[in-house]
């Protein structure tokens, strides 16, 4: 085990796959000598050279389109979109082209493509550089959607995404980049579509994603002091979604809380609530409760942003009052 930061783990994941497979190429804005604006790809340019680690112009449609055309014809590209907010500038490419071309051509093409993007709030960047957009991608058939919460998963799930034969949108919550954690030595690959129980508990299940996972873990710690044993499930992959693991935990505890960074409407937790209501209604001992950012663009000021996003305190209080 080595101690790596989340950003180092991202670079390690790409490096591992570029080393293994000469068809893996990495493109994006400022990803070359600059090592990425979040420094999540430092060292790749020096190690693999300017042909395989390639700077692009500020042309998001060209980045995703070129990566798609290359993926259709033999490469396994990793494309970086600097901020997930910028996905809006190339959403045609992602939602209409990348996601649908395999289906529309009746499987004549595969698109083994990873689009990495820095996602989410906590950095005081304001509403155009802080959005939590997993649900945009989740709403489009044909896209896999992954969001790791730890350095080990940053490496393992990214490697898994690169090896996956289908397009994956890989959301890196930007406030996690500086977080350190243990990452297994040697080749490390995780399968997409497996949720992880991060903490066992018998009283309720808190399901969280990406940066909300450490917050849910802290909340569970505080709840334990009050005598509430909360299980915490890290979703990790929204598509494919490991409903088996999540439903099992919900059935065990009888209560479901979701912690979502996204604004309220149509967050992934809403889909999960619908599945749970459909399939294990009789096992529930109380209402399903979603803890989300309110349905507003994320404000910039630290006090506003902190109060808008789900906090450890809000999670703890919401669970506590609902479990009373």
């Amino acid at each position, binding site marked *: 085990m080595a101690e790596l930061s989340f950003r180092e783990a991202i670079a390690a994941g790409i490096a591992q796959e570029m080393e293994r497979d000469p068809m893996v190429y990495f493109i994006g804005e400022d990803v070359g000598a600059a090592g990425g604006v979040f420094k999540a790809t430092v060292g790749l340019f020096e190690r693999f050279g300017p042909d395989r680690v390639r700077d692009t*112009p500020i042309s998001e449609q060209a980045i995703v389109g070129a990566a798609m*055309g290359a*993926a259709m*014809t033999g490469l396994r590209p990793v494309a970086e979109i600097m901020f997930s907010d910028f996905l809006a500038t190339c959403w045609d490419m992602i939602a209409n082209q990348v996601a649908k071309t395999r289906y529309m051509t*009746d*499987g004549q093409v595969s698109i083994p493509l990873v689009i990495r993007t820095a996602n989410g709030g906590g950095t005081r960047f304001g509403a155009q550089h802080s959005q939590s957009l997993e649900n945009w991608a989740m709403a489009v*058939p044909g896209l896999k959607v992954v969001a790791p919460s730890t350095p080990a998963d940053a490496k393992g799930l990214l490697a898994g995404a690169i090896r996956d*034969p289908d397009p994956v949108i890989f959301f890196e919550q930007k406030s996690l980049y500086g977080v350190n954690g243990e990452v297994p030595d040697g080749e490390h690959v995780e399968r997409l579509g497996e949720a992880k129980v991060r903490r066992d508990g018998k009283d309720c299940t808190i399901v969280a994603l990406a940066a909300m996972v450490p917050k849910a873990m802290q909340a569970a710690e505080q709840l334990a002091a009050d005598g509430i044993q909360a299980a915490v499930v890290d979703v990790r992959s929204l598509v494919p979604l*490991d*409903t088996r693991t999540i439903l099992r935990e919900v059935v065990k505890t009888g209560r479901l809380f979701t912690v979502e960074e996204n604004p309220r409407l149509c967050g992934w937790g809403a889909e999960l609530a619908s599945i749970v209501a459909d399939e294990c209604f009789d096992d529930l001992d109380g209402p399903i409760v979603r803890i989300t950012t309110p349905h507003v663009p994320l404000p910039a000021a630290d006090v506003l942003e902190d109060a808008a996003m789900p906090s450890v305190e809000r999670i703890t209080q919401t669970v506590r009052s609902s479990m009373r």
Partner: protein
Amino acid sequence: MSARVEEPPAAEVDRPTRLRLYQLMVELRDFEQRAYELFLENLVRGTSHLALGQEAISAGYAVAMRVDDYTFCTYRGHGHTLARGASMAAAMAELLGRGNGMLHGKGGSMHLTDVKHGAMGSYAIVGAHLPIAAGAAWSAQVRKSGQVAVCFFGDGTTNIGAFHEALNLAVIWTLPVVFVCENNQYMEYTPIRSVTAVEHPAADRASAYGLKPILVDGNDADVMYETARQTIDKARNGAGPSLVEALTYRHGGHSRADPAKYRPDTEVREWLSRDPVKRYRERLLAAGIAEAELNEIETRAQQKVDTATQEARNGAPARVDEIERQVWSDGGAAWRN
């Protein structure tokens, strides 16, 4: 200064190539006409965008391409797909929504694709396939495969951002891609000149990307073949992309719903007199090719379209179990366990 139309090539295209060009143009013409007749019978549902009148461009390029080169085209893509060798029966069946269709009914008229013949897809969002074609060219470049990507699009595409992003990327990466603008004078229903800052929507923008303006008669099969040869050779030789503007005309409306009443009669008559198929027939006769030989090409093309139509009509409706197939590479559509 606006680009000028280039002179036709001095040297004659050889006879076998000319016969091949003529055969392809006649087949594409007959296919589109049959597709139109099938609309009138209400057998083609949804929409369809015919390329009647634009056959010289698809034929010229297809004949000049290597078998493993890539074609990327638009929703007006029947001709480009068939020109690469795709099955006419499978294309017709796809238009009719049949189970024996090229895409088993999942794509329809606007998405004809036949990867094994290099037809990498028909893309129905204006401009999207230019960056994708650049990406296929990038892949060919790094794999050192010698393949070239040819990307066809309409005049309206020159006003969307993806056109400019793709051109810039193709030039800075010296990609083996040829961008072919089929300027059929109308973006959809609106004359392209009334919504574009320059007279020649593609050729007059070439210099912005350091490219030579190439403006050619898109209704002349010899010109298109020569232009194709030169631009493909350039790409294959590592000298980077080209941007071609081929002047042409849609004989019909934008789509099946459009009777194209907005076009002045004199303009329509003028362009019909330059019908690429008729014109080429006259040129071949003048070059000493026997009329009987051309008649035979025409008869065979009709037979081919008749056979394809019969096969398509005989096809069963698309199968409902196709709905949840081929979202993913495992062949299925599962999003949860």
